[in-house]
């Protein structure tokens, strides 16, 4: 063998083998070293470098919400929470400090030689000093914040109770599972073992070391003073020590130990509640008075503004759909998208622990505009240099709303004024007691600009109610305070559509304005029980008899003749009527950006393919498979006032766009419709002209110098049913919570020409003219009071 000839010694060969072995072992080391420092170098260096950089986020300020007169409706207000460490809250701190002082007094050597009993004894002597010190701190804190000491102590007790009960529950659970485990392992559970388990299980929980909030929403000034107090150190009172020689063991400690002041920035809604003085001189006579009444209105524009949810926790996953809204916002705003990301690609607007998030209304829908971008402070730890990217405050959102007008209309619709309650002159068919509150909605739309100036839905709710008693907001199926009725609740339009249908029929060539149509009380000659006029049903007479002539369009709108419009509906058919309604925006969302909207409905299917001629006949008088909202009504009236030019309504200034669409209505049709609307509230035979109160006639509209065009509607509505006591198959029927007709009154008002479209609906209010009419009239007075008319 060659090896043996070269190396005759066995030892030499063996050493060679060992050397080869060592070299072989070095090979993987060299390879891995090469891999790490070669191909993986860049990645690993970047990772290592990252540890030299510390990034801190700085908070941003949420944008404000302003009304059309730049009143601040929502803004961030600095506010602070006072938190204190748990051992301080419980007083345990005093004992541990006494122990530390005792050890200091004894000296390290002395302490080591003391018996446990002596140690305890010395500690006890310091205890009163520190307990008194804590008491002093609590007094000081209470007086600084301006709360009674008892309140502070109650807060402490509440924190203590909450934490200890959580601890007790956890200990019980731990003991249980430990015993189960021991049993599973087949270990005998001796007393000693059980004690050991209990000792292990009684380990304190994290909350026992953490800080807890004692006082919330402390304002800027007090927060600042508390922060100063937190830094204050003072020597505990030595006079409580029995032995003066121990005093040298006392050192300065914070006055309120373990206290911290935490930013809890509040969202402030300055106009949420305000007092409105209402002039009642123009009210219907039973309610009228020379003295104005002050009404305290709460939750003004709450439906529109919405609210924020509580600060989110660290493990919070996000608002459903927010990620896509964020993307859409960034796509639509290239400028915002440019700034939104840090150098390493993190979204500065992304949610983090402690963020507040819009939860409803505009606060939710405009979240990304309002939210802003937090700042980033990047510190290079090795050089101590900092790079600061300042926070970018959120953008303001300006509304077209007039907050005071909004509040005034809300006041008008509050039950204490009596307009939105059951009244004797309304002739309530269901004979509800006088004063029963009625709920509804009102919208004021500027005809020229399509701006929504007011949009009220009653009942409203307050943010405090939402926090403290959410059932009162969400629980009532009739009141449905959480729904913004003006845009989100479906209503059958009823007769208020008739003027528009007239214009449509003339435009479509289904009605010649020079022709008259005979009203025989019912549409079908042989079926007097269907397709009837109201006066035929009630008084067995017809409009042709009452007027002494057959009806043209103006007459039909004035007297709200059903037979006339059934006829038009039959002539227009589904093919004519549905596209006409669609052209006015029914079935299409407004996209206002202040909360959910009901887009309007034409038939059960989205494409209306389920509709047939009988439906068209019904839909021509605003009944049947058609539903819309008060905003749709105001929008349609504004379109009529513009002679058939539609402008989509807006409530957020920034989303206003000047793209009116001319529906090319026949001008004679529009003229007849407008004249009909004028006569309906002014003409002798008009359905919306007068109230009959105590056998005396009073005009519904009484604002001097203001012209009104309008139409009543008494729309048949489905009842609201209560829960079915024995299920759908049982013999018992569910109770009826609410039933009857919705009361509509939609008007155009202006001194020279129609300036504002006002729609009012009262749920299950009954007669349109009698219930909604006086409210519409008072809205005109409100517009005058606020300087619009």
């Amino acid at each position, binding site marked *: 063998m060659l090896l043996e000839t070269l190396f005759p*010694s*066995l*030892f*030499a060969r*063996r*050493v060679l*083998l*060992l*050397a080869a072995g*060592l*070299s072989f*072992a*070095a090979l*993987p*080391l*060299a390879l*891995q*070293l*090469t891999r*790490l*420092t*070669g191909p*993986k*170098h860049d*990645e*690993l*260096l970047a*990772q*290592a*470098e990252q*540890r*030299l950089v510390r990034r801190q986020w700085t908070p941003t300020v949420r944008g404000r919400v302003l009304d059309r007169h730049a009143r601040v409706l929502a803004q961030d207000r600095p506010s602070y929470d006072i938190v204190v460490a748990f051992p301080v809250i419980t007083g345990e701190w005093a004992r541990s400090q006494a122990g530390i002082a005792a050890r200091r007094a004894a000296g390290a050597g002395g302490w080591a030689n003391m018996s446990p009993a002596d140690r305890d004894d010395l500690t006890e002597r310091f205890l009163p000093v520190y307990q008194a010190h804590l008491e002093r701190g609590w007094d000081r804190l209470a007086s600084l914040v301006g709360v009674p000491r008892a309140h502070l102590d109650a807060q402490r007790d509440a924190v203590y109770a909450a934490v200890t009960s959580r601890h007790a529950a956890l200990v019980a659970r731990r003991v249980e599972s430990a015993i189960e485990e021991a049993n599973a392992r087949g270990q005998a559970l001796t007393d000693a073992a059980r004690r050991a388990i209990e000792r292990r299980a009684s380990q304190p929980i994290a909350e026992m070391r953490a800080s807890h909030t004692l006082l919330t929403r402390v304002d800027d000034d007090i927060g600042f003073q508390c922060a100063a107090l937190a830094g204050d150190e003072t020597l505990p009172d030595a006079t409580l020590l029995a032995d003066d020689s121990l005093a040298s063991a006392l050192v300065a400690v914070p006055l309120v130990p373990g206290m911290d002041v935490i930013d809890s920035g509040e969202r402030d809604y300055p106009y949420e509640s305000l007092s409105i003085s209402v002039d009642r001189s123009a009210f219907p006579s039973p309610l009228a008075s020379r003295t104005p009444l002050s009404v305290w209105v709460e939750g003004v524009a709450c439906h529109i503004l919405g609210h924020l949810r509580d600060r989110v926790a660290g493990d919070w996953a996000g608002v459903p759909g927010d990620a896509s809204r964020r993307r859409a916002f960034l796509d639509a705003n290239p400028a915002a998208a440019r700034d939104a990301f840090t150098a390493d690609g993190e979204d500065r607007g992304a949610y983090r622990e402690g963020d507040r998030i819009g939860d409803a209304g505009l606060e939710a829908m405009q979240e990304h505009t309002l939210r802003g971008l937090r700042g980033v402070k990047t510190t290079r*730890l*090795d*050089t*101590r240099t900092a790079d600061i990217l300042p926070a970018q405050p959120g953008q303001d959102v300006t509304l077209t709303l007039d907050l005071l007008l909004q509040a005034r209309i809300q006041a008008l619709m509050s039950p204490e004024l009596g307009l939105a309650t059951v009244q004797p002159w309304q002739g309530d068919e269901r004979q509800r007691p006088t004063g029963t509150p009625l709920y509804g909605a009102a919208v004021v739309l500027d005809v020229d600009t399509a701006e929504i100036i007011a949009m009220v839905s009653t009942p409203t709710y307050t943010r405090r109610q939402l926090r403290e008693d959410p059932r009162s907001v969400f629980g009532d199926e009739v009141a449905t305070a959480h729904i913004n009725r003006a845009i989100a609740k479906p209503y059958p339009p009823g007769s208020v559509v008739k003027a528009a249908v007239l214009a449509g029929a003339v435009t479509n060539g289904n009605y010649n304005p020079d022709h008259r149509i005979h009203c025989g009380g019912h549409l079908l000659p042989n079926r007097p029980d269907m397709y009837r006029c109201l006066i035929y049903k009630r008084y067995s007479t017809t409009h042709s008899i009452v007027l002494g002539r057959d009806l043209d369009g103006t007459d039909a709108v004035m007297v709200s003749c059903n037979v006339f419009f059934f006829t038009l509906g039959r002539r227009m058919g589904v093919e004519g009527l549905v596209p006409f309604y669609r052209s006015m925006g029914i079935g299409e969302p407004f996209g206002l950006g202040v909360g959910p909207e009901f887009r309007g409905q034409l038939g059960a299917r989205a494409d209306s393919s389920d509709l047939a001629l009988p439906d068209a006949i019904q839909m021509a008088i605003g009944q049947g498979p058609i539903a819309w909202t008060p905003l749709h009504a105001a929008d349609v009236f504004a379109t009529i006032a513009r002679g058939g030019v539609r402008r989509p309504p807006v409530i957020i200034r920034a989303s206003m766009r000047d793209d009116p669409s001319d529906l090319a209505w026949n001008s004679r049709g529009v003229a007849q419709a407008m004249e009909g609307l004028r006569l309906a509230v002014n003409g002798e035979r008009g359905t919306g002209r007068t109230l009959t109160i105590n056998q005396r006639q009073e005009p519904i509209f009484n604002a001097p110098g203001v012209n009104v065009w309008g139409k009543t509607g008494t729309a048949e509505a489905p009842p609201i049913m209560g829960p079915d006591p024995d299920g759908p198959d049982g013999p018992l029927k569910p109770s009826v919570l609410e039933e009857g007709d919705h009361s509509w009154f939609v008007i155009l008002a202006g001194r020279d020409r129609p300036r504002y479209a006002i729609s009012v609906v009262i749920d299950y209010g009954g007669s349109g003219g009698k219930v909604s009419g006086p409210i519409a009239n008072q809205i005109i007075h409100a517009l005058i009071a606020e300087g619009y008319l």
Partner: protein
Amino acid sequence: MPYAASSSRRPGVVSAIIHGALSLSRAWPALPTVVASLALSLLSIYLIDVASTRDPYDGVRPLSAPAVRQALYLLIAIAASVLAIAPPYRRLGTLSWTLLGISVLFLIFLLIPGVPASIVRPRNGARSWIDLGVADFQPSEIAKIAYVLVLAWYLRFRRNHRTLSGLLPPAIITFIPVGLILLQPDLGTAALFIPALFAVLVAAGAKLRHLFMIVLIATLAAPAVYPILKPHQKQRIVGLLLQIRGDTSADQDINMQSVTSQRLVGAGGRTGVGDAHSRMLLHYNALPERRTDMIFAVVCNRFGWLGGLAVIGLYGLWALGAIATAAACREPFGRLACIGLLGFIGVQVFINIGMNIGVVPIVGITLPYMSFGGSSMLTVWIMTGLVVNIAWRRPRVTLRKPFVFEDD
């Protein structure tokens, strides 16, 4: 002692030293070992300073306290190595059993239950250290040296280790210290004895097929050991498997040390990052044990791939010196002792570097000549001294042809 005899005319101290120094040139085969030991030790002082930086480094500070201490340890260790050179090494052979006996007594002392914590203070749960007041002392380190001497002394003229049953006495000799160290428990140190034993047996001419057989059986039996490992030991093995699979889920906990070490090694690149930069990277990446077990990561971070290979090369140089000494020594005890020492150093270097770059699970094993610590420094320098001693006092004539067996 032939040189002593030749200078018997005037036993002046000066001339004895001069004469001794001149005759020390005979130790030339050990020169690479000495050079490597010194280079690695000096390098470690700088690297420990780098690894001890805390605040932003302005580059004008004196050596940090740990680096100064390491320098002090080095001086003491070199002094100790001189003591290891002084007595003729074969006399150490005669004393070897006594030495092992003393270290076994120390190892037993560590395990006595009642010893106060001020003397034997458990570190990371292991009773491995004796507190001497001024410094801590790790008896297992001395046991390594005594064990190598005993093994070499026992095997020097033997032939029965060429039979399977003849392997039993060396196994028993090994088991005594290993068993005691395992009881501390210090699995890492205990594990070093086995490769050292094998190295000596291979050099002593044990039949390779016997050794292979033992290795094979041990390899097959290894998984059976897993259940009796301590939880933290299991974790490290699981951690390494996770890393191999590319699973980063454990990077923040059980793999933290390994991953951080690899990150810092990789960050070094070809030639390393600058002095100040390296100090900051090490500080803020907070690599645990960076002055002791993980010092190789510091080498690579500061000097990169080149530095890492250079250090591995220096250990190669050390090995070269030990092998050259063994080859030049025509006497079996010296030969085997050299190989035994090489076995310990080689395995320790392999495991330590391996765990620094993520090819071996993390175990508590220091890097010879480089890790911070007096006990370790002292031991490895005594090893250097022994290699020099053997090279210097190797006999001029072969007394008997060692390790030549008719049946081979």
